[in-house]
C-alpha cells in the first residue's frame, strides 16, 4: 500500500538498529567442571554420560562412561562414589544416585552384550601388565584402545584381583566380574592366569615387552602379635575371604571374632554370618572412628553382626579370648583402661590391613620402595624407565576406583612414553559450584533408593544385597542431574532475552549470542539453571 509518510512503518524494520553497541559487558557460553567429575578418582565425565542417559540413550551413555572406566557394572556395585558426596543436587533435595545409574548402565551393557570398539591402527608396541585387578585391567583396556598389544600376567587362578578375593559375592556377584573382564579380553587383551611374575625384567625380556605396568595389589594380610595358646585358631582376613572363592570353606567354628574396623573386617564378619557363624567384631576405637564405610557397618548390624567397640584382644586361647576395654584420650586415641573381659571364640580373624608382595621387583635398578609401597612419579613411572606401577602397590587410598583411575592415568603416560613424548593432561575447567546455579528451575524430585534384599536372605545367602534400578527409575534418577556447568539446552537463555539476541542452533548444537543486538543485560546469565553462561567485560 502507498503508506502515509513517517507515521506508518514497514514491519520489523528495527533490525537496522544495532543495539549491541549499548553493551559494556557481554555474556559468553562456557563449560564448567561439575563437582561429580571433579571428585571421581577414575576421572569419569559423569555429567557427560548422564546427559545421554537422560535422553534414554543408554548405549551412548555407557560408551561415554567407558571412555574412562571399563568396569561400570563392577563400579556400580563397589565404588564408594565420592561423586555423590560432591553432587550439587544435595543442596536442592538429595544427591543424584550416580552409582546406581552407573550400575544400571553396566548391567544393561552386559544384558545387551555391548562390546568395546577395537582400535583401527596398531602401534606394534607390546606392554606387559602384571596383575588382573582393577588397576591392571583398566590400564590394559586403555592401552589396547590406544593400539598397543597388551598381555596381562595374573598370578591367581581368576582375573579380578582384590575385586574377587577381597570383596564378597553378596556385594559383587562373580558373573559380573567375568562379563566385564571378558569384554576387555574381546577387545584384544590377553590374560595369562596362574602366571606369577617373579622377576619383572626377566619377564619383559622374555616377552619382548616395551613397557610394563605393575598392579599386583596388596594381598598379604598384616599380622599383629597376640599372645596365643597353641590350640588357638588365628587366621588373616584375606585368606579367609580368598578361601570363600574355593571349594572347601574355611573351618572357623561358630563363634568367630573379627579383629579390625575396616571394610575388610566388615566383609569377613558378614561373610561368616552367611555361613551360619556368629561373628563378633572387635575394634579398638569407636564406630565413628572406624575406617569402614558407615553404610557397611549399618548393613552388618542389620544382619546381626555383633561389635565390641573400644576393645583390644589381649590373649587368645582355645575357645575364648580376653579383651581389654579402651577409652579415647582427649586426642581421640584409644588408651587401655585395665578392664578385662573374656569372650567365647572358636577363631580369631585378623583384619588389620594388607601388605604388598614386592618380590617381583628384587634387583630391579632405580626402584624406590618406601613403607611397603613402590614410589612412582606423577606419570606413574617407577624409578626404572619403562616400568610403571599403580593400584594398591603404590602410595594411595586403596579402592577399586582409585585403582581404575591409576590404570587410565598410567596407560596415557605409557602411551606417550612409548612414543617418546610426555603426556600433558588438558587443563581443568573452573568448578561449577552451587552458587553458579539457579536451582529454581529444577523441579522437586527425591532420590530413588535402591531396593535391598530382605534380611533373612541376607543372613543366610550370598545373594546380592543391593538390587539395581529398573529402567523407569534409572531414567528418573539420571534426569535428576542438574547438569552443573554444562548447557543442557533448556532454552532459558533463548526465551528470556528481552532483545531476541540468542540464536538457537538446534538439538545438540546449543546456542550462540547475536552480539548485534545483545544489550548485555545479563538476564540470560541470571536465569541459566546450570551456570553455563558468564558475563565478561567488553574489551576497550
Amino acid at each position: 500500500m502507498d503508506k502515509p509518510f513517517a507515521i506508518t512503518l514497514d514491519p520489523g524494520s528495527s533490525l537496522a538498529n544495532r543495539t549491541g553497541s549499548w553493551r559494556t559487558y557481554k555474556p559468553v557460553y562456557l563449560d564448567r567442571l561439575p563437582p561429580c567429575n571433579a571428585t571421581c578418582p577414575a576421572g569419569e565425565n559423569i555429567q557427560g554420560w548422564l546427559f545421554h542417559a537422560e535422553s534414554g540413550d543408554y548405549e551412548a551413555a555407557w560408551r561415554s562412561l567407558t571412555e574412562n572406566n571399563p568396569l561400570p557394572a563392577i563400579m556400580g556395585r563397589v565404588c564408594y562414589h565420592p561423586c555423590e558426596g560432591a553432587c550439587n543436587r544435595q543442596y536442592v533435595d538429595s544427591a543424584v544416585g550416580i552409582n546406581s545409574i552407573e550400575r544400571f548402565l553396566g548391567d544393561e551393557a552386559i544384558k545387551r552384550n555391548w562390546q568395546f570398539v577395537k582400535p583401527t591402527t596398531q602401534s606394534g608396541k607390546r606392554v606387559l601388565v602384571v596383575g588382573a585387578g582393577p588397576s591392571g585391567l583398566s590400564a590394559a583396556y586403555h592401552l589396547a584402545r590406544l593400539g598397543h598389544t597388551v598381555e596381562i600376567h595374573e598370578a591367581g587362578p581368576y582375573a579380578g584381583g582384590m575385586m574377587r578375593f577381597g570383596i564378597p559375592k553378596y556385594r559383587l556377584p562373580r558373573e559380573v566380574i567375568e562379563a566385564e573382564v571378558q569384554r576387555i579380553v574381546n577387545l584384544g587383551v590377553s590374560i595369562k592366569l596362574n602366571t606369577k611374575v617373579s622377576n619383572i625384567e626377566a619377564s619383559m625380556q622374555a616377552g619382548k615387552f616395551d613397557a610394563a605396568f605393575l598392579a599386583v595389589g596388596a594381598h598379604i594380610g598384616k599380622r599383629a602379635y597376640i599372645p596365643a595358646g597353641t590350640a588357638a585358631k588365628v587366621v588373616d582376613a584375606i585368606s579367609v575371604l580368598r578361601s570363600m572363592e574355593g571349594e572347601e570353606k574355611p573351618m572357623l567354628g561358630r563363634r568367630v571374632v573379627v579383629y579390625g574396623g575396616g571394610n575388610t573386617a566388615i566383609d569377613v564378619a558378614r561373610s561368616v554370618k552367611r555361613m551360619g557363624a556368629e561373628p563378633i567384631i572387635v575394634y579398638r576405637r569407636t564406630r565413628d572412628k572406624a575406617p569402614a564405610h558407615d553404610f557397611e557397618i549399618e548393613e552388618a548390624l542389620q544382619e546381626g553382626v555383633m561389635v565390641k567397640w573400644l576393645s583390644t584382644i589381649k590373649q587368645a586361647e582355645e575357645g575364648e579370648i580376653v579383651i581389654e576395654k579402651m577409652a579415647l584420650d582427649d586426642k581421640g586415641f584409644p588408651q587401655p583402661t585395665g578392664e578385662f573381659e573374656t569372650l567365647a571364640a572358636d577363631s580369631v580373624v585378623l583384619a588389620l590391613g594388607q601388605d604388598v608382595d614386592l618380590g617381583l621387583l628384587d634387583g630391579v635398578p632405580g626402584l624406590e620402595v618406601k613403607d611397603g609401597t613402590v614410589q612412582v612419579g606423577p606419570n606413574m613411572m617407577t624409578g626404572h624407565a619403562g616400568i610403571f606401577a599403580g593400584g594398591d602397590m603404590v602410595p594411595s587410598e586403596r579402592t577399586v576406583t582409585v585403582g581404575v583411575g591409576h590404570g587410565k592415568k598410567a596407560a596415557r603416560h605409557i602411551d606417550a612414553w612409548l612414543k617418546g613424548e610426555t603426556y600433558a593432561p588438558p587443563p581443568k575447567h573452573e568448578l561449577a559450584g552451587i552458587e553458579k546455579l539457579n536451582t529454581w528451575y529444577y523441579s522437586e524430585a527425591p532420590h530413588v533408593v535402591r531396593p535391598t534384599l530382605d534380611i533373612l536372605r541376607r543372613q543366610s545367602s550370598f545373594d546380592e544385597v543391593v538390587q539395581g534400578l529398573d529402567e523407569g527409575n534409572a531414567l528418573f534418577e539420571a534426569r535428576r542431574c542438574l547438569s552443573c556447568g554444562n548447557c543442557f539446552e533448556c532454552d532459558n537463555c533463548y526465551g528470556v532475552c528481552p532483545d531476541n539476541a540468542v540464536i538457537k542452533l538446534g538439538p545438540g548444537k546449543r546456542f550462540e549470542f547475536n552480539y548485534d543486538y545483545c544489550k548485555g543485560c545479563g538476564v540470560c546469565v541470571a536465569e541459566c539453571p546450570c551456570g553455563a553462561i558468564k558475563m565478561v567485560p567488553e574489551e576497550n
Partner: protein
Amino acid sequence: MSYQPIKFYQTGTFTVGNRLLAPEERSVQASSKRFNSINSGHRACQGCGEALGARYAIDAAMEATHGQLIAANATGCLEVFSTPYPETSWQIPWIHSLFGNTAAVATGIAAALKIKQKKNPQAQEIRVVAQGGDGGTTDIGFGCLSGMFERNDDVLYICYDNGGYMNTGVQRSSATPPAARTATTMAVGPEPGNAFGQGKFVPAIAMAHEIPYVATATVADLRDLEAKVRRAMEFRGARYIHILVPCPLGWGTQSSETIKMARLAKETGIFPVFEAEHGELKSALAIRRQLPVEEYLKPQKRYAHLFGKQPNVAVIAKLQALADRNIRKYKLLETV
C-alpha cells in the same frame, strides 16, 4: 518399587523448554520458529521486563490465532521504544493512537473486522489484542477499558504492569504499590507511594465486570503466561490479562534481575497470579517456595527507604500483611 513418573525433564515446567520435550509440550518461546512479534533492535532499557512480556504474550497470541492478529497499543514505554520513526520492531499489524483510548481503538478494530467477516465469511478470522502499561490501563485509559469490558467487545486487553509511569521518568500511577518510591512520591514522611491497600487492582475490577476471562501473570512464569493467553483466545468477548513486568529503571534493580524480581513478587504473595472466568476465581498459581516480603523489597531501590539504619518495621509489616492477605484470598499456598 514406586517412583514418580516424570512428565517433563527434571526442570519440569519451569524452564522455557528443553531438548527432551515432545513438540506439543514445548513453550512458544522455545521454538526457533516463534514469531518474535516484537523484533530485535527495539530501544527498551537493558533487561526490560515489558519488552519481554510483550514478546511472550503477543507471540502466544499469534500462535493461538495462527498469525491472524491485530494489535492496538497505548502510548508509553512499549510504544516509544518499539516504534520510533523510521523503525518499528513490530512484525504484526499494529496501531498506536493515544494514551487513554487503546481499549476503544481495539473495539473499533473488532467492529470493523466483524463486519468484514460478515461480508466475507470464508475469509480467515482475525482477532484483536490491545496492550498498554499500567498508566494507560489503570489510570488514563480506564474509562475506555471499562466501557470495552461492559460492552463485552471481542478484545483481549493486556496490561503490562511495571507499577508506574516509567516512560516519563518514574511517576506514581494508581498501580504503584504501597510504600514504593516514585519521582512524585518521594521517600519522605511515613508512607511514600500509594496509600495503603492494593492500589487500583484492575484485575479485580475486571472481574467485577464479569467478563469471560481475567488472569494475572508474570514474566517469571512463562508457561503459565502462555497458557493464559491461549486460554484467553478460546473465549469470545472482553478478556483481560494483567502481567507484572519488572522495570530495572523504575524499581532500581539490576538489569539481570528482571525475572528474579517477578519471581519474588509471586513467591512472596505480593503479586497474586490467578485466573477467573465470568467473574469467578478459577485457579491460582501456588507459591512454590514462600519467602518473606523483605526478600522482594530489599533488592529494589524504590523501597530503600524502608531499610535504612532503622528499618521501617511497621511499613514492612503492613506490606507482609498485604502479601498474607493475597495468600489467604487467592489460596496461594494450596497446591491443586
